[in-house]
């Protein structure tokens, strides 16, 4: 599924790395606990989280995740956005909740592995 598709499905908007909106996303992982992300088979996945802290970007980069969706309309501050820009990790923001975001993407075929 293209990142662009995902953005449309969750009624989100892309905050950084607009040039990556054609990126192919094949799996997703949802977590607010970064240790969970580190402990799980998350490589190559897009991270769905309601945590808006710089740690989400560093964690994603660390385990080779390809993008981040921040849910519940949480605001990503400049530190997060600059870091994501620098590391080339697109950040999508949506007002939908974690549950709704996961549900919609699962319904449209995205899986965790």
């Amino acid at each position, binding site marked *: 599924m293209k990142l662009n598709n995902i953005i449309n499905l969750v009624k989100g908007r892309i905050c950084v790395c607009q040039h990556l909106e054609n990126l192919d996303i094949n799996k997703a992982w949802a977590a607010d*606990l970064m240790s969970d992300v*580190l402990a799980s088979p998350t490589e190559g996945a897009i991270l769905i989280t309601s945590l808006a802290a710089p740690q*989400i970007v560093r964690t994603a*980069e660390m*385990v080779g995740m390809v993008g981040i969706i921040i849910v519940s309309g949480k605001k990503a501050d400049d530190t997060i956005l600059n870091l994501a820009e620098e590391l080339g990790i697109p950040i999508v923001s949506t007002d939908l909740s974690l549950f709704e975001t996961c549900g919609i993407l699962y319904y449209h075929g995205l899986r965790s592995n």
Partner: protein
Amino acid sequence: MDLEATNKLEQETLSCSVEKVMVRNIPQVTPYWQMRHVKELMRIRRLDGVPITDDEGHLLGIISISDLIICIENKDLEAPVSKYMTTPVKYLILNKTLIEALREMNRFKFGRLPVVDDKFKVIGVVYWWSLFAFLQEALDTGMVVKKTTPSEGVISYTYQILGKDFVHAGNASLQMRKSLQQLSIDPKDLRRIGIIAYEAEMNIIIYADRGSLQAKVNSEKVEVIAEDKGPGIPDVNLALQEGFTTAPDYIREMGFGAGMGLPNIKRNADIFQVDSRVGVGTKVYAVVNLTRR
């Protein structure tokens, strides 16, 4: 610090424009303000000096803490700013570099210098603390000690970590990952090393006062060594249980402190050791054997 790191700090950091270290959005204060209002402004914004400008924003003078003290001693807070401001005032032009700012401030023992553009309009102030913050950040990210021992074919990277430095939490591991990436290590191994480093770094930041993170690389394995001066772990076996945590809630708000740190490190390591002494510190040692490519 080796030559490479020192040079990096001098060239990139010290020659950058003062624009990078100055504080913007300083309210425009004009000479006919009452001293009382300036005092309030300085108190609320915690500024130890504010530039004084005319209505168009051109620099006229400065009110510093010492000017304010004289005014308060005179019980003259209703007086206009023009009566107490220091003038003429030392200033920096926008295209000055950080090292020039440092020299000026040190030469005159000033704690702050207004920055003006080519039309002499104030666009910001370099405060000693904004300089400090900038330099500390530069030092933090430049604080990598790279050593090579060619005879043994070992490359080692060391990163300093400050306890409670949540702003930079994860930076050292990211830098380490970047360095290792250049050694063309298999991505799967890189991921394991990254997880070990990240969890170890978070542990230092959450629990210790300071510590270091080191990666020693040779052709067969990467050793990750995280050492800290901190409270130590009273019961290592308990700490190795998934879900066991002593982290306060605010750590959890950052997505950490769920009691997965040490178990996560263990799971990703081929060799794993924890040495901890209560009241002294903790040393975590992990080895990842590299996949042959």
